[in-house]
């Protein structure tokens, strides 16, 4: 509850800071300080200090899992702001508003991570989506950004319509919006419930870009300003995933035989389409968009397995994926050329940046000693233990191997190709140190994943 209220307040503060303050550095510092405060109050809440208790009639419930997840999200956003907030200035004039929208999105994530009622799920998803439409189109003079925004908006609100229909049908079947009430089995299962569950599943699948509903992702991620793509592809995606797993864990656990196979098929399709299409991309930005689809496939394994193991896995995966992708995007934003050729000879010009980028890419590919490996390991382990379908974890393993090929293309370009143009990259020392710290964290999590997971229990 602390973080939920503070993030909404911070959003308002950022809105007004744009009017009162003229200096962009001051606005940025307020945002970063606010982010730290958000992280702090959330960790305090994990230790039992709640500043303000609002009676939500049981519609919002902050448990350990939600709080830890929020902490990861806030920490990633903090890193994201320290690395990339400076680059938002280039997008447009409304600098403070972009930051305000980011805080509102965090408010939405805090809602969806702790919902106990479908009303809150809907509100949270919309609080996440509507600012994202704006951020996608924030580069007003760029036609690609405008188009991406319109496309995202039309498809996003369409999927919202589907979600609402699903919720309405479930309400018709069960007479309640509470997930605990929906999970209760009394008498025969109503067809309304099954139809509603499928609609909800599809609309959630759309929001996290799972395979048959992924078609908007590459276009929108490509068209949006790169700074905001970084935010959308990592923090927002992980945030909606927790809603996904919570919905199916608490709302539909008793219907498991009905949805398990569908989720398995969605997972398989996502893994296949995401990984194989990513191989053929020419632009690193677009490759990362497809890779985010592929990573969504891995995260979906946790929904499929649905066990304490898989929840641990999702926590670890969200942390590993967010940190690595934010790091890569932070470097990518600084580049002038987003194709693979743009990375040619990068290792000679910027040895340090090339080294940390390599660590992030290795983590995304799931090479041992990085956080990505541990995350993938937990996911596949959970899927192995809790399923009758052995082909799914095997497919995931094969696809993890395929993913190595496109991540290594970037490494190959950085280290084994010669650059034709001299580097124009300028980075501050602070940027360098943050990236190195991030890379160290990725390696640390890869060796001691329990550093993070222990928080779930103590």
């Amino acid at each position, binding site marked *: 509850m602390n973080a939920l209220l503070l993030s909404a307040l911070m959003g308002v503060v950022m809105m007004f800071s744009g009017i009162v303050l003229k200096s962009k550095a001051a606005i940025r510092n307020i945002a970063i300080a606010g982010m730290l405060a958000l992280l702090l109050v959330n960790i305090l809440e994990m230790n039992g200090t709640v500043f303000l208790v609002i009676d939500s009639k049981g519609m919002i419930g902050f448990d350990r899992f939600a709080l830890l997840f929020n902490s990861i999200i806030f920490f990633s956003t903090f890193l994201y702001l320290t690395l990339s907030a400076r680059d938002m200035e280039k997008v447009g004039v409304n600098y403070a508003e972009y930051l305000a929208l980011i805080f509102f999105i965090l408010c939405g994530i805090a809602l969806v991570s702790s919902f106990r009622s479908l009303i809150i799920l809907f509100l949270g998803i919309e609080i996440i989506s509507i600012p994202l439409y704006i951020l996608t189109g924030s580069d007003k003079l760029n036609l690609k950004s*405008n188009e991406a925004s*319109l496309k995202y908006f039309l498809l996003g609100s369409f999927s919202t319509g589907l979600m609402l229909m699903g919720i309405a049908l479930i309400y018709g079947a069960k007479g309640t919006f509470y997930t605990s009430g929906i999970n209760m089995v009394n008498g025969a299962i109503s067809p309304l419930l099954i139809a509603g569950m499928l609609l909800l599943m599809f609309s959630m699948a759309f929001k996290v870009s799972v395979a048959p509903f992924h078609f908007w992702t590459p*276009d929108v991620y490509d068209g949006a300003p790169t700074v905001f793509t970084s935010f959308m592809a990592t923090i927002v995606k992980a945030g909606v995933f927790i809603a996904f797993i919570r919905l199916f864990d608490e709302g539909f656990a008793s219907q498991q035989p009905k949805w398990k196979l569908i989720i398995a098929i969605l997972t398989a399709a996502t893994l296949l389409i995401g990984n194989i299409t990513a191989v053929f991309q020419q632009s690193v930005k677009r490759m990362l968009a497809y890779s985010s689809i592929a990573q969504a496939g891995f995260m979906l394994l946790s929904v499929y397995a649905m066990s304490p193991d898989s929840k641990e896995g999702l926590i670890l995966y969200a942390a590993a994926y967010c940190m690595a992708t934010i790091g890569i995007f932070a470097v990518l934003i600084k580049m002038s050329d987003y194709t693979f050729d743009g990375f040619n000879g990068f290792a000679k010009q910027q040895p340090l940046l090339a080294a940390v980028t390599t660590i992030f890419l290795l983590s995304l590919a799931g090479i041992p000693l990085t956080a990505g490996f541990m995350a993938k390991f937990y996911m596949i382990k959970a899927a192995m233990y809790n399923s009758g379908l052995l082909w799914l974890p095997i497919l995931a393993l094969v696809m993890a191997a395929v993913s190595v090929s496109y991540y290594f293309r970037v490494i190959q370009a950085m280290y084994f190709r010669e650059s034709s143009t001299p580097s124009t990259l300028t980075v501050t020392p602070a940027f360098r140190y943050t990236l190195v710290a991030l890379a160290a964290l990725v390696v640390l999590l890869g060796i001691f994943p329990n550093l993070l997971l222990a928080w779930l229990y103590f």
Partner: protein
Amino acid sequence: MPIVYYLYLSLALFCIGIVGVLTRRNAIIIFMCIEIMLNAVNLLLVAFSKMHPPKAGIDGQLFVFFIMVVAAAEVSVGLAIIVMMYRRIHSVDVNFLNRLKH
């Protein structure tokens, strides 16, 4: 009147909305179709809330309020995006949205 009539009516409206979204090419009309979908849901929720016992029924009507407000927020953002698009290319035809394909 049995509840199924309300169900049929709102599903019919919902399907009209879906078909409209999938077949029309004008962004504004697509958007109107999405609004039809949302209103079909509102109708269904109100009908269900009368069907369920009084205490549970309140929730459904409450949800309708939330949907209306969120829809208004979506309208304001959506129309702003469409206007922004129109000022750039003087058209709201979604067939023009093909620059991102390559």
